[in-house]
C-alpha cells in the first residue's frame, strides 16, 4: 500500500483541460506556454487541412493546428471565442486551436486508463489515455504526435 502511495505522489501532475465540441481533453500543464484568443492566421500552401496557418506571436512565426480537425472531429470556422494554446513540442512552439479551456486538473498517473480498443486509429494515435473526472471522460493528448510524423522527420 505504501508503495502505491509513494508512486502516486511521485507521478502526480497538473493538467490543463480544454473542450473541443462536446468532448474534453487535457495536456500536461508544463508544456503549455500561454493561452490566447484566436486571431486570423495566414494560410500556408500545401499543408494538411488541420494546419490553419501561421500567426505572429511577438515576432515569432507560430503555426496553428486545429486540434479538432487533427482528431477527426467536426469543426466549424474559428471565431473570436476560440482560444489558442501555445504549447512546446520538443524544440518547437506551436499553437493548438481549441474551443475553450475549462479547468486545471490535479491528478496522478495511475488513474489514467489506457485507451480502449474501440477507438478509431486516428484517435488512438493522439490519445494517450482516458480518465474519469466527476463523471465526465477526459482524454489525455499525446502532444508529440500532433504534428504529422513525416513532418517531424523533415525537420
Amino acid at each position, binding site marked *: 500500500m505504501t508503495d502505491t502511495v509513494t508512486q502516486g505522489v511521485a507521478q502526480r501532475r497538473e493538467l490543463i483541460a480544454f473542450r473541443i465540441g462536446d468532448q474534453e481533453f487535457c495536456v500536461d500543464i508544463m508544456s503549455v506556454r500561454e493561452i490566447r484568443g484566436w486571431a*486570423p*492566421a*495566414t*494560410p*500556408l*500552401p*500545401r*499543408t494538411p487541412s488541420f*494546419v490553419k*496557418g*501561421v*500567426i*505572429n506571436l*511577438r*515576432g*515569432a*512565426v*507560430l*503555426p496553428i493546428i486545429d486540434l479538432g480537425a487533427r482528431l477527426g472531429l467536426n469543426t466549424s470556422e474559428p471565431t473570436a471565442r476560440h482560444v489558442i494554446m501555445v504549447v512546446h513540442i520538443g524544440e*518547437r*512552439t*506551436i499553437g493548438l486551436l481549441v474551443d475553450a479551456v475549462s479547468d486545471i486538473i490535479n491528478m496522478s498517473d495511475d488513474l489514467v486508463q489506457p485507451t480502449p480498443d474501440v477507438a478509431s486509429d486516428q484517435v488512438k494515435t493522439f490519445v494517450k489515455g482516458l480518465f474519469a473526472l466527476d463523471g465526465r471522460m477526459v482524454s489525455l493528448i499525446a502532444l508529440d504526435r500532433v504534428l504529422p510524423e513525416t*513532418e517531424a522527420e*523533415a*525537420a
Partner: protein
Amino acid sequence: MDPFESIKATFFQECEELLTDMESGLLAMEQGDDDSETINAVFRAVHSVKGGAGAFGLEELIRFAHVFETVLDEMRSGKLHLTDEVAKVLLRASDVLADHVAAARSGGQVDEGRTVGMIADLQGLIDQDRAAELGLNEDGDSGAVEEDFGFVPVVLSLDEPAADAPEVDVAALMAAAAPPPEAPAAAPAWRVTFRPKAEMYAKANEAALVLRELARLGDVEVALDAGAVPPLDQLSAEQAYLTWTVRLSGDKSEAEVREVFEFVEDDCDLEVTREGEAATEASEPDIAADDDASASAVEAAAGAPLDLDALLARVAAPTEEPAPAAAPAPAPVAAAPPAAPAQDPASLDVAGLIALAEKASQDHAQTQAAPPKADPKADQKAEARAAAGPATAATPTIRVDLDRVDRLINAVGELVIQQAMLSQRVFESGLARSSDVALGLEDLELLTREIQDSVMAIRAQPVKSVFQRMPRLVREVADMVGKKVRLVMDGENTEVDKTVIERLSDPITHMLRNAIDHGLETPEEREAGGKGAEGTVRLAALHRGGRIVIEVQDDGRGINRPRVRGIAMAKGLIAEDAVLSDDEIDNLIFLPGFSTADVVSDISGRGVGMDVVKRSIQALGGRISITSEPGKGSKFSMSLPLTLAVLDGMVVSAADQTLVAPLSNIVESLTPRAEDVHLIGGRDAVICIRDTFVPLIDVGVALGFRDTPLPPASGVAVLVESEGGGKAALLVEAIQGQRQVVIKSLEANYQHIHGVAAATILGDGRVALILDVDALVTTSRRKAPRIEKRMAV
C-alpha cells in the same frame, strides 16, 4: 574561465589574425612584392606570435617562430633576396607555423619531422655563418633561447603600439644576426653595465625582468650602483638613478647577451664587455646579491610605491644595505602611474601593472625587512595581459560573443515590426500626417532603420576569413598531386552573415580539392594540350538573388561526358538508353555512389563524393550546380542563403494572400495582354515578352491557394530570374509596394514548405510568406505532378 585561460584564448584569437596577416603578406611576396613594408609586416606578425607564445611558455612554437623570424630578418636587412624559391619556402614555413599555433591551442602535437625539415629548409636559406650560429641556438641550450623569449616579448608588447617598435627590433636583430666577434668559448665572462633611462620605465619596462632574463643565460653576479640616487628632497619620481653591473659567466655570444636587451636597448645605456677572470674577481662588489634576491629586490622596488620606511632608511644609510634599500628609487617611476600613463599608449596594461604594484607594495609592507618576491602568478598575469594588450590598443575593435549579437539582432527585428505596426495603427486612427505623433513616428522610423542597418552590419562579415585559408589548402593539394596551380580569388569582401561564413569552409574546401585533383590536368598534359603548365583555379564570392554564391572554376579538362555517362550506366545509376542533355550528364556526378576518379585518391576521394557535398549544401538551404566545357574547364556554383534577417521584397497579393517576392529576383513587372499569353499543350502557359517566351506561373495556383488560374489580363506579371538564370513570369493579382522585410524562419516551428522561402511579419502584424522564386520556377519546369497549371485565356 579563469582569467589566465581567457587571456590565452585572446592570444590565440590574435594569433589567427596575425597568421592571416602573415599569409597575405607572403602571398604578396610570392607575387614578387619585395617592398620592405610587406616584409616588415610579415616579420612583425611572426614576431608577435613568438612574443605572445613567450608569455605562455609555448616552447615548440617559440623555437620554430624564432628560426622563421631569423630568415625574415635576413630579408629585411637585405642579406637574403626574394626569389620564387624563397617565397615558396616561406609559405610552407607559414603553414608549419600555423600548425604549431593550432597544436599549442589544442594541446596537440606537431609533426616533428615536418618541423625539423622546415627548420632545415629555412636554415638553408641563410648563409653559412648565419646557419652555424642558428644551429647553435637550435641545438644548444634551447632552453635559453626559449627562455629569452619567455618574457622579453612582454616588454615588446607594451612597447608595440608605438610605431617605432619595429625599428627597435631591427637594430636588435641585426645585432643578433651579426657574427659574434669572438668564439663564445673564448669568452667565459661578460661584464654588462646596464643603466636604464627614465624613458625605459616610462614605457613600462622593468629592469628586474631584464636582469632576471640575463640570469637565465648563465651564472650572474649583479651589483647595484645606487650612487646617483639624490637625497629624498631632490628625488624626482620620473627619473632613473640606478645602474646595474652584471658579471655573466657562461659560453654565450655577445649577440645573445645583447638580445636580452633587445627591447630596451634604445632606452638605456648598455655596455657589454668581455672581462678576464682576475679582473672580475677583483671588481666583484660585496653588495652583489644572487640573481634571485636581486631580481626580487628590484621587483619589489618597482612594486613598492611609497615605502617611506625603506626610503628613509636608504637616505640615512646609503651605503650600508644598498640592495634592498635601493628599492624606493625606481619605485616612483613604476609607482607614479597616475601621472605616467598619459604618455603610455597601453593604458590598460598600466592599470594591470598598477594592480601588481599595489599588491607588491602590500606584500612589502608586511615583510618590510626582507624584500618580498613578487607573486609569480600575478607577475605572470601581468605579462600575459601585457602580451594581450597591444592589439586591443592598436586596433579599435572589440570581441563580442555571437550570442549577444544574436539577441540584439532578434530584439531589433521585433522593434522594426512593432514600429511598423505602430505606424500603421496611427495612420488608421486618422491622425493628421502633420500631427506631432505622426512626425515623431517618422523620426522613430528613421532611427529604427538606422539601428537595424547598424546591427546587421555587426554580424555581416566578409568571406575573406574563409577564403584566406584556401591558398594553403591549394598549395598542399597541388604538392600532393604534383600539379601546378594558381589560385585566383575574387569577391573576398562579399559580406555574409557570420553564421553562414562558418559553414562555407567545408564545401569550399571540398570543391577546391575536387577542382585540383579531378579538374586540372598534370603539367605535362596541359602543355601537350597547348595550355600553360600552371592551372588556374578561381574562387569567387558574390551576391545574387539575395543569396551568396560561391563559384569554384578551373581551367582544366572539363567533365568527360562519355566517361561520366559510362560510369553512371555501369553503376546502374541511369538506364542504358537514357537520353540526357549535356547538362544532365554533368549533374550525374552529384548522384550518390558516383566517383570518377579511377583510383580513390587521398585528396578528394576520401569516401566523400560530390553527392555528400550536395547534400550538406542542401541541408543549409543551399544549392549547387555545375557547368562544364570539355577541354576548357568546369565551374561549380553553390548558393547559400544569407540567413541575415532582412530582405528587400516586393509585396504582392495573390489569391487574397499577401506575399513577398525577393526584389533581387525581380527583373521587371508588366501588365500582360491576353494576346501575349499562349498555351502549350493545353495546360502550361507561356507569355511573350519582347519576342521571348517565358513560362507564366500563376502564383495562387502554384501555391495551391486556388484551383482556377487568374485571367492573365486582370493581373500583373512579375518577370523573375532564378538562380540558374532561368526566367519566368509570376502572375499575381496586384503589386502592393516594395519594402524591407524581416525574415522569419518557418522551419523553426513548423517545417519547410516548397515554394516558400520564409515568412515575415508585415506592418499590420500579420504573417506574410516570402516566395522561393527558384523553387517556383524549377517546379514549373519539372512539372511536379501535384501542381497543375491551367491557364484560361
